[in-house]
């Protein structure tokens, strides 16, 4: 039998991803020993289990052993919520609105005073021990009325559309600008020096919606119809357009991945014979240059939601950020594919008079794998809830709106719920981690006798959701639950009701206090590790 030398085995293992290494080390003792002896493979396994991938390795990037050390500290900090760092940002006071983008260690605040085609944005980098990033902030000015601005996962690319002044009936086509945050110049790989000109008038631009990988998603008013457009910002090619229904409101929409766009449910809701809403989440597949599949140009999928979601359904899907160090020498990306679709609905629960909230958490992988295995062949497919829902998702009753849903934030597969309390000086934060790899690790730890994690397979916040017609909803989506007392500095303004906002990034949580005006930002605190 041919025996490969250890070095050659190591080379092979280096080419595998983290799951491949784990599978391979089960083949024989020698392979397992090679895996256990290698720091770089250990790092790869650790990184994969954290849902991250390495970024661009520059000359300032620490060595593998140091990266492994930081990663372990970071993973442990999220489990124990040891608030290792608290940074106070008093200088942010002023006419700041809610952030336009929270991505990685970057938060982008627009200014309230946007007039005469000039917009000012403040970029706040929160400190991160994991990434070795210091706190810093800078401002940039855009010579255009840019209300909607999008930062992509590299944290160095932002895009905005130069739109006509509000209420101006100008049918001039929108021009998109793609720039680099660090230099302020047109982004080096963007098409035509960072300006994408849609010259096929009459199009009146309204709002950019999303940016993911090479694509920009936008909603444009054309021929008295809302038209949804997917553009490749590197090549300048419009990859997909869809004329939406003539409605007065624009449907919220996001990229599911670089091949699918997802629309909010209620706008597409059909009604049955009795006039009740039949809610769907609709997903469109567009022909993407990044995908080489022979999929037809456009297919659509309607994912039916459980009946209980009929009323006033609100949906938001959050995209885990690929996080790089803003200094350029990036490492520790989080995997942009690890995402959670979060749907929240408010309604009268179970016949009782009180209004309540429930949520459905769905790993986006569930969607995408369903779509991949059921090609619609250019047509349209309706997927009943029973078929797609129960296998990978569950609805959870969150209780009355005002309680548990205050300060609910999502980033990637993590969800943080702040529990407000009447007693000043006490408050808790609950972190639910749905990341399949992190859950698998927690389960492995539990098997080894470590009981530091709470792993829930069935129950969650409040009671189990068992409404009629939704028995199938009671499925398992395992998650790790961590609940801790908040640091003193943070609870004051939560309990006192002076909270402006709370934002979650891969590296920690940021709280902001309300400023002088109700819509203005006050002091900000970041708890990061």
């Amino acid at each position, binding site marked *: *039998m*041919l*025996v*490969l*030398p250890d*070095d*050659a*085995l190591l*080379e*092979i*293992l*280096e*080419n*595998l*991803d983290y799951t*491949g290494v*784990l*599978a*391979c*080390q*089960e*083949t*024989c*003792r*020698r*392979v*397992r020993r090679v*895996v*256990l002896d290698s720091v770089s493979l*250990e790092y790869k*396994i*650790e990184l994969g*289990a954290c849902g991250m991938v390495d970024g661009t*390795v520059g000359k300032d990037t620490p060595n593998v052993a140091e990266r492994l050390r930081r990663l*372990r500290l970071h*993973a442990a900090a999220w489990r124990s919520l040891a608030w290792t760092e608290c940074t106070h940002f008093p200088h942010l006071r002023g006419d700041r609105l809610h952030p336009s983008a929270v991505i990685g260690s970057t938060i982008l605040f627009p200014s309230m005073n946007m007039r005469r085609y000039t917009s000012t944005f403040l970029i706040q980098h929160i400190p991160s021990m994991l990434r070795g990033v210091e706190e810093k902030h800078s401002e940039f000015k855009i010579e255009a009325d840019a209300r909607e601005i999008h930062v992509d996962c590299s944290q160095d690319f932002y895009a905005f559309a130069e739109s006509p002044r509000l209420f101006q009936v100008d049918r001039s086509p929108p021009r998109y600008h793609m720039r680099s945050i660090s230099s302020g110049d047109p982004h080096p790989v963007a098409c035509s020096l960072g300006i994408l000109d849609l010259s096929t008038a009459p199009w009146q631009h309204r709002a950019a919606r999303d940016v993911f990988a090479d694509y920009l998603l936008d909603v444009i008013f054309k021929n008295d119809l809302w038209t949804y457009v997917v553009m490749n910002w590197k090549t300048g090619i419009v990859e997909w357009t869809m004329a939406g229904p003539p409605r007065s409101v624009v449907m919220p929409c996001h990229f599911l991945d670089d091949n699918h766009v997802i629309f909010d449910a209620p706008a597409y809701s059909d009604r049955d014979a009795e006039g009740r809403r039949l809610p769907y989440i609709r997903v469109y597949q567009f022909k993407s240059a990044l995908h080489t599949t022979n999929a037809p140009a456009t297919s659509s999928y309607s994912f039916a939601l459980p009946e209980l979601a009929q009323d006033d359904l609100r949906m938001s899907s959050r995209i885990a950020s690929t996080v790089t160090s803003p200094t350029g020498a990036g490492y520790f990306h989080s995997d942009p594919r690890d995402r959670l679709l979060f749907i929240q609905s408010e309604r009268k629960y179970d016949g009782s008079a009180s209004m309540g909230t429930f949520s459905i958490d769905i790993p986006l992988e569930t969607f995408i794998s369903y779509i991949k295995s059921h090609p619609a062949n250019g047509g349209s497919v309706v997927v009943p809830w029973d078929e797609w829902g129960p296998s990978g998702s569950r609805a959870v009753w969150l209780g009355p709106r005002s309680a548990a849903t205050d300060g609910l934030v999502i980033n990637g597969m993590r969800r943080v719920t702040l529990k407000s309390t009447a007693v000043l000086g006490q408050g808790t934060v609950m972190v639910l981690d749905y990341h399949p790899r992190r859950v698998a*690790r927690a389960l*492995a*730890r539990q*098997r*080894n006798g470590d009981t530091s994690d709470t792993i829930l397979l069935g129950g969650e916040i409040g009671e189990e959701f068992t409404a009629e017609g939704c028995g199938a909803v009671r499925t398992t989506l395992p998650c790790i639950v961590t609940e801790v007392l908040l640091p003193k500095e943070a609870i004051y303004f939560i309990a006192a009701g002076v909270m402006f906002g709370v934002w979650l990034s891969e590296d920690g949580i940021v709280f902001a206090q309300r400023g002088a005006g109700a819509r203005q930002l006050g002091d900000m605190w970041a708890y990061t590790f």
Partner: protein
Amino acid sequence: MPTIVSVDDSTVPGEGSSRLLLLVSSDNKHIVVEEDIMSRSRFISKQVEGFEATSQRHAILLPFSSFVLNKVIEYCSHYRGYYLLEDDPDAAPPGRSPVREWDQEFLDVDRNMLLRIIKAAHYLEIKSLVGSCARAIADMIRGKTTEEMREILGVENDFTPEEEHSPSSKCTG
């Protein structure tokens, strides 16, 4: 270490800048190759340095068949005169080796041959070839079950039943 056999100087005419080397495979085939071609191999280079020191040139015995050796020589001939970062002993250790189209075609061989080539490349210390082979083998085992991986890598399950199911301590973090 291969046995070093003294050979008559006439079989290895050392003229000009590129002298000739005599390589002997395990199936006793004698292959004459220009020294220049084989300079990519650290092992051969070290041998040649030895020749210079002792002013004696020998045949180099190699522990693999001529079939494999010819394949390696084909690789070295293709990249003759090329600078490949992985083969530069002074360069910083590179990460994963880059994808080279020619290598992919060159390594489009069966599993056994691929394992033989990587072993030979490892013996001859040709890092770029080891890297390309490793990539090709990794492509083969990616997404396979543990049992299929064993077959591809040619290893046997030598775990005790307890060991097999115990998650290795380091990886449960």
